[in-house]
């Protein structure tokens, strides 16, 4: 293997970890509520801007913004669920599909209105530069962000498997009626899952702000890719989303390397189409 290929693979792995963290929140929301949250990546954008303004106004490094983003986006998610999404839970299917589009358009343009459509960047984050491993050079912020993503993903996984609340969330996901009969307040579980999902994507935003451009429409591409990740992994499957995220990161960089960088996303989408053609329920779906 050429050195370049190895470094492409590593890069794909790193960006893939970010995709995983973004997508597990989305798949959690879908699994519990059966709702595709089209505004998911706009919460990512809000996380990035939160981190940016904390840095610009109060000189707080993105690394320290992570808990702030987590809490802020948790609250935002809770509010959006309570006042908007919960209203369509018993409504017609199409309203469930469309409502989050409204949220998405609203949030993205709120950002345009407040902060203009300009591209920004955090100039000198605490973590910068590269680590040199001979053939492979690792960008420090990217690597830390990816390791952080894996940790947060693992955290969610353990939370769901090990805690009583986590198991209640899984129970609602598998059988809402039975969960009610067990005494689980399913409405609360919905709100909690939505808030956890947005909180995780907020954390991803803080990580991403260390090395990525920050602008109101940044959600666009990330949103499309995270849908692909979730669907590829199988809607509702946390493990599936995690694996598919890394897979898509690698497909994207290798596709760009072997073919044309301009087509890297097209290749990702094509891989999705071929996968669901063969396996209509995604990789780990049921």
């Amino acid at each position, binding site marked *: 293997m050429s050195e370049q290929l190895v470094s492409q693979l590593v890069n794909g792995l790193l960006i893939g970890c970010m995709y995983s963290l973004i997508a597990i929140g989305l798949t959690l929301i879908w699994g519990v509520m059966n709702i595709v949250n089209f505004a998911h990546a706009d919460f990512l954008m809000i996380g990035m801007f939160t981190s940016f303004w904390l840095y610009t106004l109060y000189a707080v490094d993105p690394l320290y913004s992570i808990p702030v983003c987590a809490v802020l986006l948790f609250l935002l998610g809770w509010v959006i669920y309570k006042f908007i999404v919960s209203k369509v839970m018993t409504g017609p299917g199409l309203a469930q599909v469309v409502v989050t589009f409204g949220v998405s358009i609203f949030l993205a343009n709120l950002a345009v209105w407040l902060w203009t459509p300009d591209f920004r960047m955090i100039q000198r984050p605490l973590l910068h530069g590269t680590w040199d491993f001979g053939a492979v050079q690792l960008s420090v912020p990217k690597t830390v962000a990816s390791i952080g993503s894996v940790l947060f993903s693992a955290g969610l996984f353990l939370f769901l498997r090990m805690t009583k609340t986590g198991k209640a969330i899984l129970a609602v996901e598998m*059988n809402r009626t039975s969960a009610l009969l067990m005494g689980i307040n399913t409405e609360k579980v919905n709100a909690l899952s939505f808030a956890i999902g947005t909180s995780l994507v907020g954390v991803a935003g803080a990580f991403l702000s260390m090395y990525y451009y920050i602008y109101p429409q940044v959600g666009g591409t990330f949103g499309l890719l995270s849908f692909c990740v979730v669907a590829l992994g199988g809607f509702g499957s946390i493990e599936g989303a995690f694996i598919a995220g890394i897979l898509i990161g690698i497909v994207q960089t290798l596709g760009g390397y072997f073919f044309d960088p301009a087509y890297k996303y097209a290749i990702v989408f094509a891989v999705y189409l071929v996968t669901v053609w063969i396996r209509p329920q995604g990789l780990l779906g049921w």
Partner: protein
Amino acid sequence: MLEMKNASIGYKGGVLAVQDVSFRVKEGEVVALVGSNGAGKSTILRAISGLLRPKSGEILLNGEPLHTVPAYDIVRKGIAMVPEGRQLFGRLSVIDNLLLGAYAVESKEETEKTLLEVLALFPRLEERKGQRAETLSGGEQQQLAIGRGLMSRPKLLMLDEPSLGIMPKLVSEIFRTVQEISEKGVTVLLVEQNVHEALHIAHRAYVLQTGRIVLEGNGKELLQSDMVRQAYLGM
């Protein structure tokens, strides 16, 4: 203990599934609701467990209204339901299913004690503790569903069609278990299509037909009644 008074229950936008039904369950009894498919038996259980709300009439538990309690709090009132078709958490382990049954129980020690009791009642579940619920056989799944219901230490256990989809031989075993549970002091409300078996173990029974109670009485007496014999036992 439990009383339903002149309740009419229907699904959203649909016709009434149950009309003007009244019945009571006394402490320590096994009461069976029997009747054909679509007669409204399951609807009654769903209303008691809060999944449906009666359009009129009331449901009382020890004299207090139950039909205003949210569904997720019913179990905290001491009522557990074993739903039709078992409705397990398929991708969770047997033990996780049981522990979720005790979700409403605050005390950890109590839950552990109950768990041991339930596993003693169903030794098969002990053997399969770590397995995913969906991999169990039909009979084992029904045992798990009943076990999960018992985990909340209910005073009243409601069973919806426990014999549905179970091998004939296991059916009598299930009914024996129900009797055992009753002997331990748990009141049982049973909905069954298997009229014969249900009437055998029930102290009292109500016969439903198209949403109304048409007959009530002692289980063994009903078994001898001409109407039941004709309509449900095909004799």
